[in-house]
């Protein structure tokens, strides 16, 4: 199924929660959705038989300078089509509903996004740092991140 059709289906189902659909050259077509409705949309995408997005390829945090965002790359193993969802949240209160219960692969991906960007995933059962040490401060992949000089008395920049 093409991204356009999926978008139309989503628009018909969720209306205002679907903010934007972008289909441009150099861009994989994606749909921007409201974070509040993300869980329902994800569930719909997975459980609708003609969509059947059972495979979450990638979940990545993004830093759009003024906002933070999360990108979901979905794939359907049976129907062999893919789709991209995006949500944007403000930097002051970056809370996104967790989709870990829908796709278990989101578990570690969300932890990584939290680790790197500080995006909090509401409903995640164990949202702790995954790649950085558990007591690391700051979120390294944010654009305004400043590398600390010291970590437990060890010099950080080599």
């Amino acid at each position: 199924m093409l991204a356009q059709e999926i978008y139309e289906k989503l628009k018909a189902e969720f209306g205002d929660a679907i903010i934007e659909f972008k289909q441009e050259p150099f861009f994989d077509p994606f749909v921007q959705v409201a974070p509040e409705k993300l869980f329902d949309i994800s569930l719909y995408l997975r459980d609708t038989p003609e969509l059947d997005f059972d495979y979450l390829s990638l979940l990545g945090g993004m830093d759009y300078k003024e906002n933070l965002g999360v990108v979901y790359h979905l794939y359907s193993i049976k129907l062999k089509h893919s789709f991209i969802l995006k949500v944007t949240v403000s930097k002051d209160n970056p809370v996104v509903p967790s989709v870990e219960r829908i796709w278990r692969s989101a578990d570690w991906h969300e932890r990584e996004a939290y680790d790197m960007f500080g995006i909090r995933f509401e409903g995640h059962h164990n949202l702790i740092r995954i790649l950085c040490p558990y007591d690391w401060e700051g979120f390294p992949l944010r654009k305004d991140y400043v590398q600390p000089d010291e970590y437990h008395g060890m010099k950080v920049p080599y």
Partner: protein
Amino acid sequence: MSETKRIEFEYSQIDSERMRLNVGPQHPSTHGVLRLEVELDGEIVTEVVPHIGYLHRCFEKHCEKMTYPQVIPYIDRMDYISAMNNEWPYVMGIEKLMGIEIPEKVEYIRLIFAELNRIANHQIAIATFGLDAGAFTPFLYLFRDREFILSIFEKASGGRLLYNYFWVGGLAADVHKEFKQDVLAIVKQVRETNKEIADLLLYNKIFIERVANVGILPADVAINYGCSGPVVRGSGLAFDLRKDAPYSFYDRFDFDVITGHGEVGTVGDCFDRNIVRFHEMEQSCRIIEQAIEQMPMEGDVREKLPKKIRPPKGEIYTKAENPKGELGFYIVSNGTDKPERIKSRGTSFVNLSVLPEISKGYLFADLIMILGSIDIVLGEVDR
């Protein structure tokens, strides 16, 4: 009739406690610096908590300060066992963004190298899997063959492990003149050794006992956890990006997608995951043979490109079938010569997340086998 006295024996009456065992970061079979916090009830694993990140170097942050070609050496170091395969989706993505058509010869060379590297990777996977079971000799037989493959890589790129060979718009250097004969000789050698390995290790009764019916991963769980590559194919699901979303010239070749079908145990056990790798080597040999036949030897290996690689503003997600599974790169370009963001879908990272799910209730020795059958590389898990 005499009454038999039954001894009431309740578990809770025994003064027992569960043992928390710290496996790693330095442990012979964690395949790197992985730390597993294991809770044991006697020898039975009741809980596994992986702690990763010991090899974390935040390569995604590094990439933001690098130009596009400079990122490639960093990508090599993700899954350092199969560096050629790692570079491929990345350069493919940038070429797609910039709209570069690459010469047919380059595409064939890339494909052959990727498949050779797939063989090399599976050799390591099977070798270390055997090593986890205690069989040391097959390990070295497979490594011997891997060295021959690496020699071909070295002749082409100059590096034995980290190649930086696939460049945006072509290759770093042309292959040598006897390339075709060398590759065919290696294919022959690989087949010979594989026959031996099957007898010596894979179909050895002791080995089968160790791996059959251990770490069963049902297909739906595998999909839900996002597993890919031999891990999901071992569960009987024919999910192979080379067939499902053909990139490069994979649609020109005749090869099969190998799936596990519970040859000696249940579908999706460690044996299936391993045997899928084993048979995939044969399929790779077939692809290589066909590609060698079709490949033109003449022509340039590098497209004319501007000095600075500046993809237009945009974003793209490219994926390719890495030996370990689906490797994807989400490249966001902001129009300059440095990427805005590169997010990689580390195959091992996703595959490893299934470990706590499938290792509960098995013996501690099985945990090691399950970990080996997932075939992780910590460079890719931690990135």
